[in-house]
């Protein structure tokens, strides 16, 4: 080493110059080692103090220690700066196309009839109805006889029925979910409030609005003081939950042997708000289900005294309701299960 050791101010300006040059963590580490490290220039300078005249040593030592503090601070600032710059650079670098499709697991979906059924049952659950199920392959006794549709009665012709090979007993594919009215009442004491979802079958040619294989929800409420007005109010609640809060409901007289009086329920058309359109055949109303007060014979045969108890029942077609809700015009699409159809129900309502 030639000449006199560098002064504190010389060291300072050199070190700060070099620090200003350091632009990444490695260079900063090198700088730290070269300047502030054990073998660094500052350490060297401190060790060289001993060579100074005694009276200068104290001042020089103080100056170098101040310098160390200053350089440590400068280093930390510089390091913060470099890190911040590096982060900024990385963030710029990581910019992506946010319109790329997301990275997902393959997504499935519930069948539209399932969604409609779940939604309907959910509404009725809130209204205090239990969900029960019954057999699809059902004795004619429950499908008809106990429902006030005796053998050889002309009303029986209304249900075009598929029959099952059997011996003495008549066995049907149930043409409606109504047999569960009787099975439920036979199995329990009043009060009764049940809904019965399930598949039903008719001997009926297929077209865009008719299926031989379809799904219903039956409803039954029996107690003292159950009235037709309760039926109207309950079904109005249901209609408003499913088709919108503004829906109006309307009864008209209809005939089902197991109810008296018997009615059909219509809602004002949700597509035109009742002013008339193609969906409602310009009538402003759309029929959604059949219902009525449980016939006294059905109550009595099921072990309920019709003088004391009254009740109502309804049966609605889930297929038809789903068609109405989504503007589907061919009932057969439910059972074709084309994925291009099913994918449209990935959006869920329940």
């Amino acid at each position, binding site marked *: 080493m030639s000449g006199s050791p560098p002064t504190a101010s010389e060291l300072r300006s050199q070190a700060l110059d070099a620090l200003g040059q350091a632009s990444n963590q490695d260079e900063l580490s090198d700088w730290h080692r070269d300047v502030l490290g054990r073998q660094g220039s500052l350490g060297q300078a401190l060790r060289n103090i001993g060579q100074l005249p005694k009276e200068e040593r104290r001042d020089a030592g103080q100056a170098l220690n101040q310098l160390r503090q200053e350089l440590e601070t400068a280093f930390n600032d510089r390091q913060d700066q470099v890190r911040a710059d590096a982060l900024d650079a990385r963030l710029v670098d990581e910019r992506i196309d946010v319109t790329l499709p997301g990275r997902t697991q393959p997504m*499935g979906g519930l069948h539209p009839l399932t969604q409609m059924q779940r939604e309907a049952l959910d509404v009725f659950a809130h209204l205090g109805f239990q969900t029960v199920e019954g057999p*699809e*392959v059902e004795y004619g006794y429950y499908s008809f006889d106990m429902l006030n549709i005796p053998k050889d009665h002309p009303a029986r012709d209304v249900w075009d029925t598929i029959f099952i090979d059997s011996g003495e007993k008549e066995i049907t*594919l149930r043409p409606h979910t109504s047999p569960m009215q009787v099975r439920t009442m036979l199995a329990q004491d009043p009060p009764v409030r049940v809904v019965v979802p399930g598949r039903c079958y008719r001997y009926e040619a297929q077209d865009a609005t008719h299926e031989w294989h379809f799904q219903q929800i039956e409803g039954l409420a029996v107690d003292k003081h159950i*009235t037709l007005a*309760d039926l109207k109010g309950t079904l109005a609640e249901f209609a408003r939950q499913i088709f919108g809060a503004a829906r109006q409901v309307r009864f008209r007289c209809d005939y089902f042997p197991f109810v008296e009086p018997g009615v059909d329920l219509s809602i004002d058309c949700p597509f035109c708000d009742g002013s008339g359109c193609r969906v409602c055949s310009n009538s402003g109303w759309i029929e959604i289900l059949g219902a009525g*007060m449980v016939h006294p014979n059905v109550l009595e045969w099921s072990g309920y005294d019709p003088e004391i108890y*009254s009740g109502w029942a309804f049966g609605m077609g889930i297929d038809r309701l789903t068609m109405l809700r989504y503007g589907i015009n061919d009932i057969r699409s439910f059972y074709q299960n084309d994925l291009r159809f099913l994918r449209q129900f990935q959006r869920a309502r329940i």
Partner: protein
Amino acid sequence: MKVPVKWLKEFVETDLSAAEIARRMTMAGLEAENIERIGEDWDNVFVGEVVNVEPHPDADRLVLPTIAAGEHELRVVTGAPNIAAGQKVVLALAGARLIDGYSEELKYRTLKPSTIRGVRSEGMVCSEKELGLSDEHEGILVLADDAPVGVPLADYLGDEVIEFEITPNLVHAFSISGIARELAAILNEQAREPELVDVEALERRDDHVEIAAPEHCGRFTYTLFENVTIEPSPDWLQRRLIAAGLRPINNYVDISNYVMLELGHPTHPFDADKLASDEIIVRLAAPGETLTTIDHVARELDGETLVIADTERAVAVAGIMGGVDTEVSDDTSRVLLESAWFEANSVRRTSRQLRLTSDAGARFGRDIDPNGASVAAARIAELVRVIDPEARSVAFADKFLRPRERRPVAMRYTEIERLLGMTVPVERVVEIFERLDLQPEVVDESGTTVIKTSAPTYRNDINIAADLVEEVIRIHGYEHVPETLITGTAVPVSRSNERLVDQIAQNALVEAGLFQAQTYTMINEDDLLALSPDGNELPDLYGGYARPEEALVRATNPLRSDWVLMRPTMLPSILKIVAENLKYSPSVRLFETARTYQPNALDELPDERRAVVLAMSGERQAFGVETNEPDAMDFLDVKGAVEHLLTRLGGDAATFTAVEHPSLHPGRAAAVELDGVQIGVLGELHPRVAAHFGIEQRVAVAEIDLVVFAERFNAPWNVQPVGRHQPIQQDFAVAVEEATPAATVQAALQKGAGPLATEITLFDIYRGENVDAGTKSLAYRVTFAAPDRQPAEHEIERARDRIERAVGREVGGTLRT
């Protein structure tokens, strides 16, 4: 039933439009299905008169009539053979929209002036077919002599026809007058009665009728007409029959049909001279007796068939159809007009037995009013008087075995409020009942107001108080029923585990990326045969189920040969859907939760067992655009979905064991077992089975029972506290023979490691360098953890030793280092 509105308005006076009548009736229980408007598109079509007819100069078969119609008078060209001067005809002018009379199918054309064989024609005279009135196109339509010349045809012949659905309870409205009676009640009008002739005052021949089967026939009447002339009915009558959907035949048949439509009571005219005598016997057919009905079908009758007979033979199937030998024809001079009443069940049985339906049978089969028989006879006599004035009604016979009386039905006034949840003033109830001819009487029975009524004999649908309540509200108006909610006792909660399991399974498989299908529950034998590789025998396993010993659940009247059996497995149904979807979708992932049907003994209902079926085929969906291209889905994809499902259902203890299954790939099939019981099967379909369903690529399926999960649904499961201590993970590579199942190796690892190993995961399979041929190396990551401590070094060491021994002992493997 089709109801021409002009006819209806003969019985009830109203200005209401057809649409409004239809609406009001529908609300009250008679549903109008359709309104047809006859003459709706008869623009530029008028009633005309033929002034003269000149020959066509150049064509023998064409003539040139001149037609006058009000301000119009023009010469047209026609080929109609029946045109003559003085006739009233239908004149269409240019611009009229007519049906093409020469076209087989229904085709409209707009009339334009044209030149036919050199003669200019500005209009035409129309046939019935061209106007859409019937299929008749031989000649032109000739109108009645009193048709008003010059008026638009729509004003003269136009009508509206409402088609009502007649539900089984509405037999009293199965006629024009019955519907009119209903309408009158709704409108608070009085329905008119038809004009009648008092046939009962004619010479009586009651002893000429013998009812030998009184349980089938409650009444038989006939009216005898002499000096009759058989000819086409007048225009107006034909027109009404056509509008109501019947074909005119001749005047007597038409009158009989007309009265059936008008009053709802069927009758039948016989040629009296073709009967052995005027003696009529109503009896059961002798077994094997034959009768050729007017549709010219020879019918063999059984001993329960009620027939009308003369002293020698059967001449009609009672209540359904007459015989061809005794039908009225052009040379008939005496008509014996039957008007009777038959038991509904008897008529329905015979109709089914002979597979013979008719308008008469449809009415008798619903139990019409026996009192209507003589009214119909009286109405027919009146129409004969008008239409065939030369004819004479000479005698009347009536055997009335079971007269029907009005039926008393009473109702407590409070019943209205109890059933409807609203009140209707007692005066209003009485008014409604009076309008319906229920003859109400309000009485006080020890403090209770009771309304006594008597139902008319034509109302077989009013029997109990609830029926009266319906009459009140349907006439009063359902719009008055308020909307209320049920009050009173709440119902105890009971949720169905099966439904919950079903929902969880559906949700789990949707999470696993599958779409839910809902398929028809019926299949046929071929679908089951297709589940065996050779396709010619039933496999001994249907999906996850053993082939049942009982005959499968079979429909006796299947809608189509495709849908004969209630499916014992869901595999065929889902495979058909997969095959369809593969035509359009590269990746097909489907499942269905539904019932399978396992037969029980004769006359017992089958077990309907809830299960889930999965099918996956085609591309495995890539997880993002930057990842590698998709592979074809296989066994492990469907297994992954099944594992996901089992986890959600609490069945993650289920095991998978390689099995042979007739429908599945011999090397890629597994039985799913839970607690030692098989609950399902999964695997890739045997390629030949797949081919039977039209699938030429890999397809992996599974069928798993769900009931077992419902049964264990309420079993408690205990959550382990999460340890606060750091777990230790160590990797173990196990070299075993190629054939050793990974699950067995893992079980050995678990056995060796003991409870300290809380999780064992296979993360790599290696074959090749440093691993002997015929051997594979399975790498497992084992997590060691204890609730109360971090496992110590020496514990891990000991576990490692035990693992090594267990692997050697259980699967003949070695730990690689």
